[in-house]
């Protein structure tokens, strides 16, 4: 008989996310190396004029936020951009690499966080499971990064990438 799947119920306090379900995948330097291995990166300063902001929003159908993306010029003529998108429940920092011609060379998620505010679950749940297992799911929480069950849609990240492409069109030369 093969070992069976074991389910360890969580106590009320084992919130996936209100304690901050968050993963950091890559630092800026690691993301640069992942998309453009072996290249040199030079920070690129820019300021958008109002007509440029308007043009980017019109091209991408996405609003610009108050924090502009960070941009680097890549040794091979490409561009490396770090941007953030904020969804209903998730916050994502991501990096986009563009070729000199402005085509997407790579997208890497740098960090991902889910946040749902302070929802409180039915207290009956706690009564039912507290003390039912000698395992301590809270301890496991520290290094558990896997979640089964649909994650959120990546649509607003796709929107963010469209905004980066519009930024390149309008302001990165």
């Amino acid at each position, binding site marked *: 008989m093969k070992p069976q799947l074991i389910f360890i119920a969580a106590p009320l306090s084992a919130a996936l*996310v209100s304690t901050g379900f968050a993963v950091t995948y890559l630092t800026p330097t690691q993301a640069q190396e992942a998309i453009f291995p072996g290249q040199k990166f030079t920070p690129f300063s820019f300021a958008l004029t109002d007509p440029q902001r308007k043009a980017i929003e019109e091209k991408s159908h996405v609003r610009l936020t108050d924090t502009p993306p960070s941009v680097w010029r890549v040794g091979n003529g490409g561009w490396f951009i770090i941007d953030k998108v904020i969804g209903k429940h998730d916050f994502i920092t991501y990096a986009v690499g563009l070729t000199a011609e402005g085509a997407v060379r790579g*997208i890497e998620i740098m960090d991902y966080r889910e946040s749902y505010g302070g929802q409180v679950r039915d207290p009956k749940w706690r009564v039912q499971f507290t003390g039912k297992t000698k395992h301590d799911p809270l301890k496991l929480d520290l290094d558990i990064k896997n979640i089964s*069950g649909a994650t959120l849609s990546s649509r607003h990240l796709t929107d963010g990438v469209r905004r980066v492409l519009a930024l390149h069109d309008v302001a990165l030369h």
Partner: protein
Amino acid sequence: MSPCIKARRARPLLGTFVEIGLSAPNESILRRAFAVGFIAIAEVQRLMNRHDPASEISRLNRAALQRKVSLHRWTFTVLRTAQSLASESGGAFDATRGPGSSWRDLLIDDAGAVRFRRPLKLDLGGIAKGFAVDRAVDAVRKAGAIAGIVNAGGDLRAFGDEPQSIHIRHPLDPGHSAGTVVLRERALATSAAYFAPALFDGRSGAPIGNGVSATVAAPDCLTADGLTKISLALETEAARILARHDAEAFLLRGNSSPCWLRRQ
């Protein structure tokens, strides 16, 4: 044990976030494994994304009423599994969409070609994510990864000698964990109507899955993914089908304890 390095990467693919976590003997194997793993996922997306008019599935949906359409072997594998799950579940799992259509309206020949008997659309979205996970696991293993996990929006598979702990989302409150399972050399998928529109029973068209989630562990993720929909629709009657696939499943309903779908 020889030393190894670990890392995780995530990319937006399959309309969700695909995460690959790997252990590898050195940096160059790790880098290569991430690359081929994400390429495999992107290839499944290219073939089976029905929102992309250029995908193979879109091409099939446009043409298969008029003529036989040959499929890539990956798409054909997913379609054959879909048909077999439909047959085993009496149509509770059904990849066809359209008024009055069912899985019986697909004519499939052994050479990998398909034709529709009536107007319908094929939607492999219910299991393509699971298949993508399997292809990525194959690819990263071949590239030399020792252990790890591939998670495509909640459909996942662990491989190698390292047990992986997995949170199951609470069916009423997906921002919270209902509990954890530990997985080793096995795939796990959970279905519920958390963020997506409701799921439907292929037989009646009735919505299922509100406030309920089904979690299935199986040897591969394609099977696990398909069996979640069957478990939600058939509940305890799914036990026989699960056993045939060497799979285990439980339902989480509201705040109740897990209901295991086992043969009595």
